[in-house]
């Protein structure tokens, strides 16, 4: 589905299902230099189980017009306009990495629009290494290689995909290579610069789910601990085999965590 948001075109995957006004809405928010496709299994499942799904390509990503929104706060402020464009009053926000920070910030800033949040692979702070930031700012392919090397658990680096016939790290690499010049640097800078995570968590009043990968190097579980402590009554699911690419590494486990959380 193509939406017009703030005068710009935004693509949102809906599972090829028309919007049904009586159904609840779930918005999926991807991470740095990715697109809606990272939610393939989770978004399609809910689209075919009585939810309106909007797995968006964030501005400047995938098929959505640019420019890239330059901060977590900017994405959070953009979210209500997205919901308006989709005729959704409220929604559950499911975010991964950068998308998780945006969902968190949006829930804190716009509580009347957010029913619940599911944060996949979050951290506060979400520090990005100097080497990675520098490579991303140069649009150096080495940045993609670093992310791929750090985003999958050691076992998953060699495959064993739950999805028959797809090579996880190859798919991830190709997706990043498709991102617009500067998009990765902007996204990583937004993650690195976001300092409001714990304050936002303390302000959240809706139900929250946090899903972390025990083998995550990009957003280590220890960096999520304070965030989890600050989120009142957060449900926490730890995936034993996952790194930072949880939806790809353990798609069923992420889906099951969401199914148990989303009414």
């Amino acid at each position, binding site marked *: 589905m193509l939406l017009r948001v703030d005068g710009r075109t935004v693509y949102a995957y809906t599972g090829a299902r028309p919007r049904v006004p009586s159904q609840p809405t779930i918005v999926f928010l991807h991470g740095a230099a990715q697109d809606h496709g990272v939610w393939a299994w989770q978004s399609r499942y809910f689209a075919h189980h009585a939810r309106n799904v909007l797995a968006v390509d964030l501005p400047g990503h995938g098929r959505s017009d640019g420019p890239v929104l330059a901060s977590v706060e900017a994405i959070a402020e953009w979210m209500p306009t997205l919901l308006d464009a989709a005729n959704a009053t409220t929604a559950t926000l499911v975010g991964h990495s950068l998308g998780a920070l945006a969902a968190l910030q949006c829930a804190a800033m716009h509580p009347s629009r957010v029913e619940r949040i599911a944060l996949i692979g979050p951290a506060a702070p979400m520090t990005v290494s100097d080497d990675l930031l520098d490579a991303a700012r140069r649009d150096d392919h*080495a940045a993609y290689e670093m992310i791929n090397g750090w985003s999958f658990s050691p076992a998953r680096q060699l495959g064993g995909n739950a999805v028959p016939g797809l090579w996880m790290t190859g798919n991830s690499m190709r997706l990043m290579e498709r991102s617009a010049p500067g998009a990765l640097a902007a996204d990583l800078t937004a993650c690195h610069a976001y300092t409001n995570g714990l304050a936002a968590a303390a302000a959240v009043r809706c139900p929250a789910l946090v899903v972390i990968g025990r083998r995550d190097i990009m957003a280590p579980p220890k960096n999520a601990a304070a965030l989890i402590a600050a989120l009142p009554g957060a449900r926490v699911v730890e995936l034993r085999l996952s790194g930072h690419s949880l939806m790809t590494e353990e798609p069923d486990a992420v889906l099951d965590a969401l199914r148990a959380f989303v009414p």
Partner: protein
Amino acid sequence: MAKPRGTHLDTLSLHAGARPDPATGARATPIYQSASFVFEDTDHAAALFDMARPGYVYSRISNPTCAVLEERIAALEGGVGAIATASGQAALHLALVTLLSAGSHVVASRALYGGSHNLLDYTLPRFGIETTFVDARDQDGWRAAIRPETRLLFGESLGNPGLDVLDVPRIAALAHDHGLPLLVDSTFTTPYLMQPFVHGADLVFHSATKFLSGHGVVIGGLLVDSGQFDWNEARARSKFPTLTEPYRGFHDMVFAEESSTAAFLLRARREGIRDFGACMAPFTAFQILQGIETLPLRMARHVENARRVVEFLVAHPLVAAVGYPELETHPDHALAARLLPKGCGAVFSFELKGTRAQGRTFIESLRLFSHLANVGDAKSLVIHPASTTHYRMSADELAKAGIAEGTIRLSIGLEHPDDLIEDLSRALYAAGKAA
């Protein structure tokens, strides 16, 4: 934080896609010889059928042993995924029917395996798909052959049997200038000698019967997607409705919306393998996996032996010419040095001087070389293309494909090179005496 380093081809050949079996701990990849797989409950069953959960339903669509092989070849080629097929011919067919419909057109190199030529030139026109064949080296010819209804450019990394080297970077650039993908048959080179995706190709297929399995014991094919071609790009979008428009045969799925990187494979599996059914058997996948484990070792030896045999034949008085791109006399020598720095494979042809009868005497005098229709075996092989693999082609077509009456094709195996040279020497002597 230490910077990650990419995994080497040798290691991927052994490990990619595989892990100790979660049920038993078996280190080797188990052969999942099961037609179908039990659902956990009705919701799980419905989700599998709906592509709302990953998993296995029926081995025609996907199988856990085949999936390991599919991941492995995708890793070796640098792609996003692959589909294992019943044969290399089935892999080519799957690629074509996923993208083409009646009225579509292909531009293909003239230097093709006879089976590929049969499919494109004789069979597919019956289904409304036409092909224009061009000289692999004629860049202008490729360009001139592209029509509004062209949907694919296709060639072999090393053309059969004259070893024309496909200029993948230039042909890929030409294809992309026209919003078209390039498909490469990489059977002769394998990812050990060339990774066509690095040079811009979009799709690759293999007859895994050859060097990948390596021992002449199975028939199988592999179709690999680079994930690089943008099916949603403005010029491509209207050309490939199988990927960019709702598919009534699968919940109105728009494959290019499901995934920006793996749309081609989704359609190929959800339609092509499902409906045409040319799937690989799990035991075949197991045998090909066994072969790939030693691919880097075998390919290095294949090339080393081929170089020794080429050197011998070039110097022999009964040999008129040897077609091997590492020789300066080969028209693609410079291109091969650029695209194939590790070697030009182990299949090549040479011209025998003398009569057709002398050619027959040569082949029948060989003891180590087996006279048969295959290549890429651990054992050395020989064949006379004009009377076998390419016999359906006219004299004119044969000439254009670089095949003469005296052309003999060799596939150099893993025997000791001195023994191979002795065998060839004896057969050439016998051919000389038969004059």
